[in-house]
């Protein structure tokens, strides 16, 4: 019984939140890894692209809420999300046309791309802060919990319950659908294969008559769509804060490199490893151990490996470990 209680506690505070967080990171990392694979640079504007898509979703959500439109028990944001996705795609295509295409024609060094992506980051960050402001915004409505802590305690007959927020379930379901579609697209469709071919060998893809501009366009469309979805899910699950999207770049990059650059499967694996490490390392195991130990015993202190303030350190340590031990990542990625 005590063991089951401990497991339920662990599931409630580690497994469930880490799964949702991992799914959100995975969507972001997939976009970054696609851009790495096709355009061959680290896109520092990706966080802001996520933020931008989310912002539009929030604005449309507010509009719908004002109009009295609702799809309760689901959050209205789901209804607004397609518009956010379209907005992110437009932003990505416009920046590609106005900024990145020029350097592609010049065949510039990847670092030059990274630097201009910083310029794009500034621009999008400015637009976001002017339009919606720098403050927190909440836009989640609909039912909050699928399974409440109380219900699950009773159902399981335990002292500890496993609560699942609706946003977490939605995150996981949406991610699963999107990822399944993405893999079907990459493996089975002509355009998907062309993307993989281009990522594998640009020159040979050219010799096969693959149009590079088309591949790049599809890449941006997918990456931006994933970014808007990821940002919105993250915002539903937590809250929307514009500044968080620069910080979230770090776990996303860590997941990308951990998985192997340009490897979609790796990006997903990497994202879940980063998310689970982060949540586990910053979880206080005091109560968990108390259940496992003798009756009426509890460890002194919180038994927390790292304070939650340092969750970025987890991504960083993972990143450093990968760079030191296996720079190609879990799934041997391209060293572009």
């Amino acid at each position, binding site marked *: 019984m005590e063991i089951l209680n401990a497991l339920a506690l662990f599931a409630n505070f580690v497994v469930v939140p880490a799964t949702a967080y991992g799914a959100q990171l995975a969507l972001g990392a997939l976009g970054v890894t696609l851009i790495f694979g096709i355009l061959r640079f680290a896109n520092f504007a990706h966080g802001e692209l996520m933020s931008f898509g989310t912002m539009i979703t929030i604005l449309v959500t507010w509009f719908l809420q004002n109009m009295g439109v609702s799809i309760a028990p689901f959050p209205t944001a789901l209804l607004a999300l397609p518009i956010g996705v379209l907005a992110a795609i437009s932003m990505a295509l416009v920046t590609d046309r106005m900024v990145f295409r020029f350097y592609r024609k010049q065949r510039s060094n990847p670092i030059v791309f990274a630097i201009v992506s910083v310029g794009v980051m500034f621009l999008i960050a400015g637009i976001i802060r002017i339009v919606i402001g720098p403050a927190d915004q909440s836009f989640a409505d609909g039912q909050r919990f699928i399974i409440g802590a109380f219900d699950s305690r009773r159902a399981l007959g335990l002292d500890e319950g496993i609560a699942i927020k609706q946003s977490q379930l939605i995150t996981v379901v949406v991610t699963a659908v999107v990822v399944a579609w993405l893999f079907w697209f990459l493996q089975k469709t002509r355009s998907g*294969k062309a993307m993989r071919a281009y990522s594998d060998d640009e020159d040979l893809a050219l010799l096969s008559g693959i*149009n590079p501009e088309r591949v790049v366009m599809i890449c941006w469309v997918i990456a931006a769509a994933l970014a808007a979805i990821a940002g919105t899910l993250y915002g539903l699950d937590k809250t929307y804060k514009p500044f968080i999207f620069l910080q979230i770049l770090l776990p996303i990059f860590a997941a990308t490199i951990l998985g192997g650059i340009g490897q979609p499967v790796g990006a997903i694996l990497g994202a879940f490893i980063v998310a689970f490490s982060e949540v586990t390392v910053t979880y206080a195991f005091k109560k968990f151990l108390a259940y496992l130990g003798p009756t009426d015993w509890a460890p002194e202190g919180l038994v927390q490996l790292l304070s939650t303030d340092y969750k970025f350190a987890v991504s960083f340590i993972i990143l450093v470990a990968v760079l030191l031990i296996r720079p190609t990542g879990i799934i041997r990625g391209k060293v572009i």
Partner: protein
Amino acid sequence: MSFLSATGMTGGYGGTDILHDCTITVEKGEVAVVVGPNGAGKSTAMKAVFGMLNLREGSVVLDGKDITSLAPQDRVPQGMGFVPQNRNVFVSMTVEENLDMGAFIRDDDGIEETKQQIFDLFPILGEKRNQPAGELSGGQRQQVAVGRALMTRPKLLMLDEPTAGVSPIVMDELFDKILEVAKTGVAILMVEQNARQALEIADHGFVLVQGRNRFTDTGEALLANEEVRRSFLGG
């Protein structure tokens, strides 16, 4: 006029010319081979034919059509298939996907048929169709590369040193396959280090020295030519 006539090609990558008034021609169903010492501009001549080099002078005419100003990727739909020397397969993709990529520009119904013909020509590819090309041996990779180029249904197939780094047995096998391809009416242009073996299967040979045509004749005649043998075939 020949099926492919690249005449008077002069040009290079930067300031200095590598090719000087170089001419290469191929007929349908024939194998033409470009040989010469190291640094003679063999691969450069091939790249010039394919448009990967800016020509100052000269022209490239394929099947009566002047394609001198076309970019390489635009020459593929015109019927040119090119097998580069290095990095000529998509290593992360399966054999079959490599072939599919070759057929990328086609939208007719015959793709499966062409694929079957390639599997007939290179049975090993059929066996390993679901394996990533990066896991194959050097000779098998060359077959994938040739297969990928053939999927475009080229009228002219160009191979840049297809036998580089493969064993003599595999080389003979590969040459046999190339002859088979030629028999179907495809013109073949090939750059080769293994000059003697290549000239043995060639209808025409072009000996280049320092970017210029030095000897041009049938393969047989070149093999019989005392000077060619002494200077370029090692006696």
